């Protein structure tokens, strides 16, 4: 039994007379099989996710209080004052998120041309300055904040000295056919007096570049952040199910394992071929190692979530 396993291992991963002195998994047919396995796995994951059973549900641990906490940490680091949590802004954020799900769009302005600032007004928030950051598909608050901070325009919103309040909505749902957790973070400075008529439309990234003068309105209510009761999870099953995987993490894990195994096989094959002074007319292992390493780096840095 062990001898058979050992022989299979040698045949698949080391140059040997049984495999024409090239690890079998590095033969063209071997690489072809790996491609086939990966494609089948991908198909399986998608199928499992789209069945009524929803074995693979999207899970997210993004919480409102963590977003507020991280935002204020970044502001303190930048030497700015912290933002107060406004329930009125949070209401505007929820209205925006609901509209995104209802109208099924991923953009700052709706397909009907409704700008983000409409939701401020509708929630009864009269502002001098306003901004909006959007995110979806993130599994954790830290990853999402990192993505926002790495984007100059989103970072400008987070550490904008003109804002004094923030409101956040973390809403699970199905957007453009995919399960997701949508995060809408609104920033604002309430107007002490008078009309909110936008002077200049904010840019497409959702950052208001110009102050906005507004009409008299009820001043926004500043309240303490409301913690999200449970991490957001969307599918019909329970939170405690052992079969719950984050689809992206699963795919990323498989991709990383595949590339590392391939790299190890290439290195082992190269080392043994050199030590046995084998002369082979095959592709260069070093070239494959460089290429697969680059793919590994890409697989590691690709983000699960999207920001806007």
């Amino acid at each position, binding site marked *: 039994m062990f001898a058979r396993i050992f022989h299979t291992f040698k045949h698949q991963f080391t140059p040997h007379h049984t495999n024409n002195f090239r690890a079998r998994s590095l033969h063209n047919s071997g690489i072809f099989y790996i491609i086939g396995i*990966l494609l089948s796995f991908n198909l399986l994951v998608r199928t499992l996710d789209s069945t009524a059973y929803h074995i693979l549900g999207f899970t997210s641990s993004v919480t409102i209080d963590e977003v507020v906490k991280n935002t204020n940490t970044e502001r303190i680091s930048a030497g700015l004052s912290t933002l107060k949590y406004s329930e009125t802004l949070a209401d505007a954020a929820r209205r925006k998120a609901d509209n995104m799900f209802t109208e099924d769009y991923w953009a700052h302005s709706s397909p009907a041309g409704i700008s983000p600032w409409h939701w401020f007004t509708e929630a009864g928030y009269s502002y001098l300055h306003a901004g909006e950051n959007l995110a979806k598909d993130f599994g954790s608050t830290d990853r999402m904040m990192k993505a926002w901070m790495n984007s100059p325009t989103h970072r400008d919103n987070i550490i904008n000295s003109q804002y004094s309040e923030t409101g956040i909505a973390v809403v699970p749902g199905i957007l453009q056919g995919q399960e997701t957790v949508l995060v809408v973070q609104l920033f604002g400075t309430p107007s002490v007096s008078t009309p909110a008529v936008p002077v200049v439309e904010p840019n497409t990234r959702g950052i208001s570049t110009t102050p906005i003068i507004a009409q008299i309105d009820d001043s926004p209510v500043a309240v303490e952040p409301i913690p999200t009761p449970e991490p957001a999870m969307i599918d019909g099953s329970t939170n405690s199910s052992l079969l719950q995987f984050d689809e992206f993490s699963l795919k990323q894990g498989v991709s990383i394992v595949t590339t590392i195994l391939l790299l190890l096989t290439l290195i082992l094959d190269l080392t043994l071929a050199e030590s046995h002074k084998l002369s082979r007319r095959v592709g260069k292992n070093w070239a494959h190692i460089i290429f697969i*390493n680059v793919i590994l780096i890409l697989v590691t840095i690709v983000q699960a979530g999207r920001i806007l």
Partner: protein
Amino acid sequence: MIFRDLRVNKLDYSVLALLAGGFVTFSLLNTNHPYQLFVSTIIFAILYVLWGVWHHAQSHHLTWRIVLEYLLVAVLGVVIVSTLLI
């Protein structure tokens, strides 16, 4: 001893390293743009196959089997990346 090939073909591997470095830099600057990442991965994969053909043609060792090997490795790379981006 395993570095012998790198020493012998310094220029060829420098070109490949340059391509790889450029692609990694571009990817790091576009982590939030899946479409750009996907297109750049395909471009890098094509350049990789062309590098393989160029490298083996220089030493007159180029065969269809070798071209296919580079093609398959390139496709494998694109498949791995595309499962995460699409």
